[in-house]
């Protein structure tokens, strides 16, 4: 198919995906704003004021980038996982499978939808955080690059989860038992330099540590990990997950009998 045909197909999938999460904005956009407000009130105002400084910044300023990133990760992942699995469950994924849409366009369309929600929620959370703390920006390009690559990574993760899922329970298992622990242990609420040496080593196996720290660097200019390693980790994850998603869709795993 020509590139213009593919471009229209991609635009259609993106249009559908963005319209889906905008249509149910009370379920998709409002909860992160409320959750983040509670984090700010509890961890920032009530507990944070007793913690003092972390990484050279007051605790509230320190956790803001991590909380934004946590929202981006959760929403990118869950958007694609629930949208793609719903399309499988209702069989309307067949609308795309019978059409001359290349598999890379399907992957790009769903990942684009996940990124759109992740980034939009990130913006909302950033706006909410302005009510609690003055945000400084150290390097806007690092912020943009990190948020885009992270949301792409977790959108791909959500897509793969949905491809394998055979029930709605299956798309909540990974977020509950893997994603949430990794996020909470990924340096959102603390600097990993506070951990004993052994646990610092263990933390380095957690990819979210690199994403949160690169993002925090963009705001505050402080990080526990090297930016080169952080972006390399993101690059490796994106290439690996994209390749896996393409193989699965091409083979028709969970999609074709």
């Amino acid at each position, binding site marked *: *198919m020509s590139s213009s045909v593919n471009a*229209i*197909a991609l635009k*259609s999938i993106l249009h*559908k995906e963005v319209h889906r999460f905008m249509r149910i904005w009370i379920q998709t956009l409002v909860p992160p704003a409320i959750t983040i407000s509670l984090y700010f009130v509890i961890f920032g105002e009530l507990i944070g004021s007793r913690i003092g400084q972390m990484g050279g910044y007051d605790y509230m300023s320190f956790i803001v980038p991590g909380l934004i990133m946590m929202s981006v990760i959760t929403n990118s992942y869950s958007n694609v996982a629930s949208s793609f699995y719903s399309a499988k469950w209702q069989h309307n994924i*067949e609308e*795309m499978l019978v*059409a*001359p849409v290349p598999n890379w366009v399907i992957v790009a369309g769903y990942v684009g939808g996940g990124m759109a929600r992740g980034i939009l929620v990130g913006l909302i959370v950033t706006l909410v955080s302005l009510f609690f703390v003055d945000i400084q920006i150290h390097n806007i390009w690092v912020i943009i690059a990190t948020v885009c690559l992270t949301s792409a990574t977790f959108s791909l993760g959500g897509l793969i989860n949905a491809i394998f899922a055979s029930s709605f329970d299956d798309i909540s298992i990974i977020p509950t038992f893997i994603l949430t622990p990794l996020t909470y242990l990924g340096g959102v609420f603390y600097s990993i330099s506070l951990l004993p040496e052994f646990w610092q080593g263990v933390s380095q196996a957690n990819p979210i540590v690199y994403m949160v720290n690169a993002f925090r660097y963009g705001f505050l200019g402080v990080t526990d990990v090297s930016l080169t390693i952080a972006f390399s980790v993101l690059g490796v994850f994106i290439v690996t997950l994209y390749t896996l998603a393409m193989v699965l869709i091409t083979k028709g795993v969970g999609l*074709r009998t």
Partner: protein
Amino acid sequence: MRKALEISNLKKIYKGGFEALKGIDLTVNEGDFFALLGPNGAGKSTSIGIITSLVNKTSGSVSVFGKNIDTELEAAKSYIGLVPQEFNFNQFESLMRILVNQAGYYGVDRKTAHERAEKYLKKLDLWDKRDNASRMLSGGMKRRLMIARALMHEPKILILDEPTAGVDIELRRSMWEFLKELNQQGITIILTTHYLEEAEMLCRNIAIIDQGIIVKNTDMKSLLSSLNVETFILDLDSKDLADHSSIELTGFTSRLVGECTLEVDIDKSQTMNQIFTQLTDLGINVKSMRNKSNRLEELFVNMINQSHEAAEEK
């Protein structure tokens, strides 16, 4: 004449070993109105699934307007419009969005897609519902929506898997008219249906599939002409039957069912006039007459029975 669809030695074995297709060959010419009939589980939907790439084939080849699905899948797909058996659109989306997005998957820009959506929604009497969520539609409306959706990219071949299942008679007839109109415009149509009357009324050519094998592939006229005996039901005037405890028609097998209903079997060498002459001689008037069963249905049942017997003998 160009071949719209060419299937060669197509086999499908599902996980678990069930052999749904045992090497079928099928050709549908451009412009044809083709019926694919068979009992439940015969392999109809599997065949359609493979043609539309929703099912992976085990072996064999499928070409759509000369484009092999193994080597030119996207080109082959672009020719096909599919109306599946089950409702498979997003239940929460509006009709307009469903149609416009579907057109987009085929590379139709949104302006053109909106124009076509308006055309087909009006044609199929769904225009007033265009902004409603599709789950709010009745069953018949959902069927029509699936037809509209399949037409959004103006396919050259339209495949309908039991499109009138659960649709009332009036609506079914209007859908038949619409399908005839599409066929007259040059769209090749392949239809699977359980309503054999539908196939007889619409289709020029027919294939009957059973247990993964094509048991008959011919034109409708030849198939119907192979029917040797038909049964007619005659409603007789009750006043004339007072003097008759039974009715014997020379040369015919007949039986009285009910008080004034006569069933008569007529083979190809016999005429209706012979029956009327004998009944007139007996002083019995015929008030009305009808064919007992759909002719195609009779043939279909016979063929399937023969196919099962042959399978059992093996």
